[in-house]
């Protein structure tokens, strides 16, 4: 099992994709958190530290894409064939991919929050602005945010195994994240439930702890719900992968 996981981690390190995702995330976080730290007037009611750390949450869709590519790219380039020849047990392959991408998601989350925190610590004191954030709240926000990013990568792995077509998986996954689920919350009756317990609701519960009224459930419950979604898609992806004939 560890061999299969190490192989998946080496795959991530030997193309430009993972590095590209990390660089793109950091560039975006630097741009937005940097601009906000330097120029935002920060309303009286806001907490500057919370707002700045929250920018690192921009890593979420990047982590999702990273996961979506895990299986779909293997089908796109036909590498699924040599991969399965080396690791014929497809459930084992899914577990290896989930483990590797959870790790990659953690790395991405840590560097994104680290960059946001560094900008916060450097720029705010220059403007004599207090972060307004206690250590406890900060830790809660960062840990939740990082776990959320890692779990989004895991969700992506499962969804990518279900959809399998690379372009379809990425577009479908991002459309769900940015558009479809937010639109569904507008449906009468069901919408409220989706808002609270959908993937978006779970994400809010885990990462938006410092924003009053964003989530219906607690942080730990939200984390477990998000883990449940990741497991659901992973199992669906593994079942489909096992049934599939690999003919190219």
């Amino acid at each position: 099992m560890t061999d299969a996981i190490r192989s998946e981690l080496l795959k991530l390190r030997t193309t430009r994709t993972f590095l590209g995702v990390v660089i793109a995330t950091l560039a975006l976080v630097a741009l937005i958190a940097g601009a906000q730290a330097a120029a935002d007037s920060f309303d009286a009611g806001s907490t500057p530290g919370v707002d700045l750390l929250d920018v690192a949450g921009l890593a979420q869709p990047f982590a999702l894409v990273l996961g979506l590519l895990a299986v779909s790219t293997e089908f796109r380039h036909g590498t699924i064939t040599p991969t399965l020849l080396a690791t014929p047990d497809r459930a084992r392959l899914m577990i290896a991919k989930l483990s590797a991408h959870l790790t990659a998601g953690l790395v991405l989350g840590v560097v994104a929050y680290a960059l946001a925190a560094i900008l916060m610590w450097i720029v705010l004191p220059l403007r004599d602005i207090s972060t307004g954030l206690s250590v406890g709240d900060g830790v809660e926000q960062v840990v939740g945010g990082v776990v959320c990013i890692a779990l989004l990568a895991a969700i992506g792995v499962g969804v990518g195994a279900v959809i399998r077509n690379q372009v379809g998986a990425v577009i479908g996954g991002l459309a769900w994240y940015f558009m479809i689920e937010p639109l569904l919350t507008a449906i009468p009756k069901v919408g409220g439930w989706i808002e609270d317990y959908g993937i978006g609701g779970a994400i809010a519960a885990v990462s938006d702890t410092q924003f009053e009224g964003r989530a219906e459930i607690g942080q730990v419950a939200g984390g477990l719900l998000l883990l449940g979604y990741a497991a659901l898609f992973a199992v669906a992806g593994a079942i489909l992968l096992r049934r599939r004939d690999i003919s190219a």
Partner: protein
Amino acid sequence: MAATAPAIEVQGLSKRFGATLAVDDLSFSVEAGRIVGFLGPNGAGKTTTLRALLGLIRPTAGSATIEGVPYVELDDPTGTVGAVLDGGMFHPGRSGRNHLRVLALAAGVADARVDELLELVSLSDSAKRRAGGYSLGMRQRLGLAAALLGDPRVLVLDEPANGLDPQGIRWLRDFLRSLAAEGRAILVSSHVLSEVAQTVDEVVVIHRGRSIEQAPIAELLAGRGGGVRVAGPDVSQLAELLRADGAEVSDGHDGAIVVAGRSGEQVGALIAANGIHISELASAGQTLEEVFFELTSDEQPAADDEEQAA
């Protein structure tokens, strides 16, 4: 290694894709140390069969085993079977060396083996370049290196000569010969008979998913068509000897005889053993290409005759 189970055994294998029966009740086997050509026109079901053998496609019926075990249940798949399947099967942005390292890691093979194989397939100089820029021949060699990672006892190659130039095909032929000489079983598919005719010991010919023939190449030729033509002063004596041996001998023109059911080698041995004086010994009538064409053509006159007779 189980002493009784053949290196590769396909039994009653069938695979249906929707309305198409790609492989239809196919059976054949490959013994250790043998190179078997898996021949048939494009679309005959070769790739489907090889992928079923490697656990990539689930058979509708029947079984395909390696040393008696289905691929997915092998303890050490990479160390038992190596496979080169159609196409490059690598990520264009990953270097050839890293491609092999990824597979080696999953199979528990050391990086030293990766460099050794890159040297063996003459890719050391390009090993750190991104594989997307490789030529077709380099891709095939990279695929071959991947197949050999675990030093497997069985090799499965799907159209390995595709896209290779004549030197490449020659290199491949010598390479496969040396691998078989080490006792490995090799199953190599092709739709072009001449690519493998000089390499293989035996052929399995399939058409429309069914096995038509499994035989050593010499036997395949001897058993069909014109057989062996012999001319010379003592051919009548030879004809008697051959008839006594049960061979079918017919008189050709110019006083020559045509022997069916015997290979040129067998006839030659008989000539040498009896000190018979001849002037000519040649395979008459069909070449291997013609036999292959006859076996795999759809409208076989012989089959039509049989239908009418029935």
